[in-house]
């Protein structure tokens, strides 16, 4: 009984003389493989030549600063709450007098860690952030030798200070 109409009948006739001496088949095979020599290669020569990322690519996290170089993060914990992989932890601290040029609001993240081994790069932290502080950049996650170096501290995540960079 036929279950589908996709089965094909196999030709089990004995081979003809032309098939038996193999040579026509070999010539045909050679024409195919030699033809492939002149085909365009699909390979992208990676370190020299990079494919552009998709506009929705989600890579390594960064912590943003505002125009004056103050940290935007207020340690509200919404990113940690949104994180399905529970990769983000933080500790909040109160801004002291004289630290107005460092932190934008009265509360800031004294500690901010993302465990990149847990992170699934879903981008929910980016969506949850009310202060536009955490972003997923277009950088591919680099590799490390130890597990501990996969835990990114605040210093690893913060982008460079815009004014300090200029003065350098």
């Amino acid at each position: 009984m036929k279950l589908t109409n996709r089965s094909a009948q196999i030709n089990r006739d004995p081979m003809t003389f032309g098939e038996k001496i193999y040579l026509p088949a070999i010539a045909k095979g050679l024409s195919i493989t030699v033809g492939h020599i002149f085909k365009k290669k699909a390979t992208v020569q990676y370190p020299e030549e990079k494919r552009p990322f998709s506009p929705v690519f989600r890579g390594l996290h960064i912590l943003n600063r505002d125009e004056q170089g103050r940290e935007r993060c207020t340690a509200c914990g919404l990113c940690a709450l949104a994180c399905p992989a529970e990769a983000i932890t933080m500790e909040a601290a109160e801004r002291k007098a004289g630290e107005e040029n460092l932190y934008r609001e009265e509360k800031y993240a004294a500690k901010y860690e993302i465990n990149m081994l847990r992170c699934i790069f879903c981008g929910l932290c980016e969506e949850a952030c009310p202060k536009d502080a955490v972003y997923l950049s277009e950088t591919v996650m680099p590799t490390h030798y130890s597990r501990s170096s996969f835990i990114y501290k605040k210093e690893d995540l913060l982008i460079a200070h815009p004014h300090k960079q200029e003065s350098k």
Partner: protein
Amino acid sequence: MQLDIAFIIEKVLLISVILLGSLGIAMYATWAERKVAAVMQDRRGPNRAGFMGLLQPMADGLKLFFKEEIIPDRSTRFLFILGPALAMLTAVMTSAVVPWGPDIVTENGVISLQVADINIGILFIFGVVSLGVYGVMLGGWASNNKFSLLSSIRAASQAISYELAMGLSLVAMLMMTGSLSLREIVEQQHGFWDGGYFTWNFFKQPLGFFIFLTCAFAELNRAPFDLPECESELNMGYHQEYSSMKLGFYLFAEYINLFISSTVIATLFFGGYNFPFMDQVAASVSPVLFAIICVLTLLTKAICIILFFMFIRWTLPRFRYDQLMRLGWKSLIPLALVNMVITGAVILWVIK
């Protein structure tokens, strides 16, 4: 007996050049093989070490040198080492009788571009090639590994079966040339066109050429007849227990064999160092330059045949063992016999 120092120096120089040349070509044959495989499969192949990956063979060779040398505890130590040595020895020995170019006639004498012009050149090649089986056989047996042994038995039976057809296909050609000396066979193929027909043996013995070529594939243990190293059945075949440069010797010997057998095919069937209009060229340039052109001609032919071997390797799937034996014994040997009869008839009644 008086020793002819100049003669010895000349031969030693020639041998060193041939040895180094065939080693170099074998090295770059590995590179070419990877490159051919890559471009046939729409890849790029080695392109990191040097321009177009040209330093890749050096890197591979160095890697093999610096690997740990392992000799298995239960192996037969002496034979285990003798195996790759023999494979290498037989591979380079065949180059002795190949005429690489015409004699260079100078005021001081004649310089021959052939190490030994012996009158049984082809027979010598056959003898040495059969010895090559010992390299594989000893290596496989001394490894004390069932897969290696199976593989070497396969290699031996394959080589013996195909040597028969190879010899028979050559007999027909030798009936036409009337000589076993490679130098004489090449001289008979002088130029390209003479007396209303091609001089190259390929046009006189097309069937013999195809049989010889098929057998050469089998003798070289190359795809589609690379059953001795059939990794899906025998892991790596007879070189499974080998490491470091001993493995390198086996692999290297294979590529030297590839080069030498391509040269022999070029010599026997494609006129060796002869090329069309060679008389006109010989009249207009100096003998040394002419000899260089001839050597380059032979090398070009050999490289074309090497490339053909590679194209075939990356085109055809491996034969099954029974298919291999059936092709050898039931097709090629009768075909070679028929070829002999036809050649005999042509010589008797047509050429006279």
